[in-house]
C-alpha cells in the first residue's frame, strides 16, 4: 500500500507545484513507483512543470465522471517509466469533484503506487479540502515571508483539525544573503513561529525558473543548489537521516557553503 501526501500552503505561489514535481521525480529516480496528482482543478500547472502538457488526453474529472478509466488518464513521464501524472481539468471548477470521489481516487492510486503526491490549490476552501482529504500525511510549503508564514499557520491548524496530524514543513526560496543582512526570516525564526517539524529548505535559485521554462524539474540538474536541496528532502522522505545543513565541501560561493558559514561552520 502506497503513502499519500498532500503538498499544500494556504498562500498561492510559494512553490507547491514545484515541490510536487521535484519530489515526484526524486522519488522515481530512486526507483519508487510514483504518481503526482494535480488537484488544482481549473488552473492546471503540474503538467507544465513536468513538461507533460502535450501528452494529456483525459483528466481527473473525466475519471470521476466515468468518461474514462483511471489508468487511461494517467500520463507516463517521458524520462522515467515509473513516474506518472494524473492531470487536472483545465476548463472545470473545483466543484467538479466531491470529497467522496477524491477519496475513491486516492484509495485506487495507493494500490498501484508507492507514493501518491497531491498538488493542492492555494486557499482554504473546497479545493484544498479535496486535495487533503485522501492524504495520510501533509507537507506544508512556505516562503520566509510574513504573509506566507501566517497562511501556513492557518493551514497547519486546518490539517490538524482534519485529522491529518502534524504536517512537515518545507521552507522555499531562502536567500542567505538577505538572511545574513537581517532582511529575511531565518529557518530558525520560521520554526520558532510555526513549531512543526522541518522536512527541508530550498534556496531561491534561478535554475528553478530555467527548469520550469524547459519543463524539466530542477532536480534533474545535478549541479544546482535547488537540486541538492530536493534530493535531500527525497532522502528524508525515504527515512534517511540527512542533516538539514549539508556539510560536504563545495565551492565557497554556493548556497550550502554559505549556509555552513552562517551556522558557524568552516
Amino acid at each position: 500500500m502506497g503513502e499519500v501526501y498532500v503538498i499544500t500552503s494556504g498562500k498561492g505561489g510559494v512553490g507547491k507545484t514545484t515541490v510536487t514535481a521535484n519530489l515526484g521525480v526524486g522519488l522515481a529516480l530512486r526507483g519508487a513507483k510514483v504518481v503526482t496528482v494535480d488537484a488544482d482543478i481549473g488552473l492546471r500547472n503540474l503538467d507544465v512543470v513536468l513538461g507533460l502538457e502535450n501528452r494529456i488526453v483525459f483528466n481527473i474529472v473525466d475519471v470521476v465522471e466515468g468518461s474514462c478509466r483511471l489508468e487511461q488518464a494517467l500520463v507516463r513521464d517521458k524520462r522515467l517509466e515509473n513516474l506518472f501524472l494524473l492531470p487536472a481539468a483545465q476548463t472545470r471548477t473545483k466543484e467538479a469533484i466531491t470529497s467522496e470521489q477524491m477519496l475513491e481516487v486516492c484509495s485506487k492510486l495507493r494500490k498501484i503506487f508507492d507514493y501518491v503526491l497531491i498538488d493542492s490549490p492555494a486557499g482554504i476552501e473546497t479545493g484544498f479540502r479535496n486535495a487533503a482529504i485522501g492524504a495520510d500525511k501533509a507537507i506544508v510549503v512556505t516562503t520566509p515571508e510574513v504573509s506566507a508564514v501566517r497562511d501556513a499557520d492557518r493551514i497547519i491548524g486546518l490539517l490538524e483539525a482534519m485529522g491529518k496530524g502534524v504536517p512537515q514543513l518545507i521552507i522555499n526560496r531562502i536567500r542567505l544573503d538577505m538572511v545574513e543582512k537581517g532582511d529575511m526570516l531565518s529557518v530558525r525564526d520560521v520554526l520558532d513561529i510555526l513549531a512543526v517539524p522541518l522536512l527541508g529548505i530550498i534556496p531561491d535559485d534561478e535554475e528553478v525558473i530555467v527548469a520550469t521554462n524547459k519543463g524539466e524539474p530542477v532536480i534533474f540538474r545535478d549541479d544546482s543548489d535547488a537540486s541538492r536541496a530536493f534530493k535531500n528532502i527525497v532522502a528524508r522522505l525515504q527515512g534517511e537521516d540527512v542533516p538539514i545543513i549539508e556539510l560536504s565541501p563545495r565551492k565557497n560561493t554556493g548556497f550550502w557553503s554559505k549556509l555552513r558559514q552562517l551556522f558557524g561552520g568552516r
Partner: protein
Amino acid sequence: MLSLFKLFKKKESSSQIAKSRLEIMLKHDRMELTKDDMLEMMDRILMVLKDYVNYDKDRVQMKVKRENGETFLFISVPVIGRPASRDWER
C-alpha cells in the same frame, strides 16, 4: 539628547520586525474561536449561571475584542432575579 540615544540604539532588522509582527498576528489567529465553539461555550456558561441567577436570555451578548495586542472576551448577562430555590441551601 534624543538623537544621541538614537545613534547608539541598534536598529531593529526587518526580519526581527517580521518575526515580532508574526508572533502577535498568530497569537490572535490561533485564538480565533469558530462560531460553533462560541455557541457551545455560551451554552455551557449559561448552564452554570442558571443555578445561581435568573437572566434574560434574549439579551445575553458575547463579544471578542482586541486591544493593544491582547484579546478580551466580553459576556453580558442581564440578571433579573434569583432562582426560587436551591437544593443545597436547604
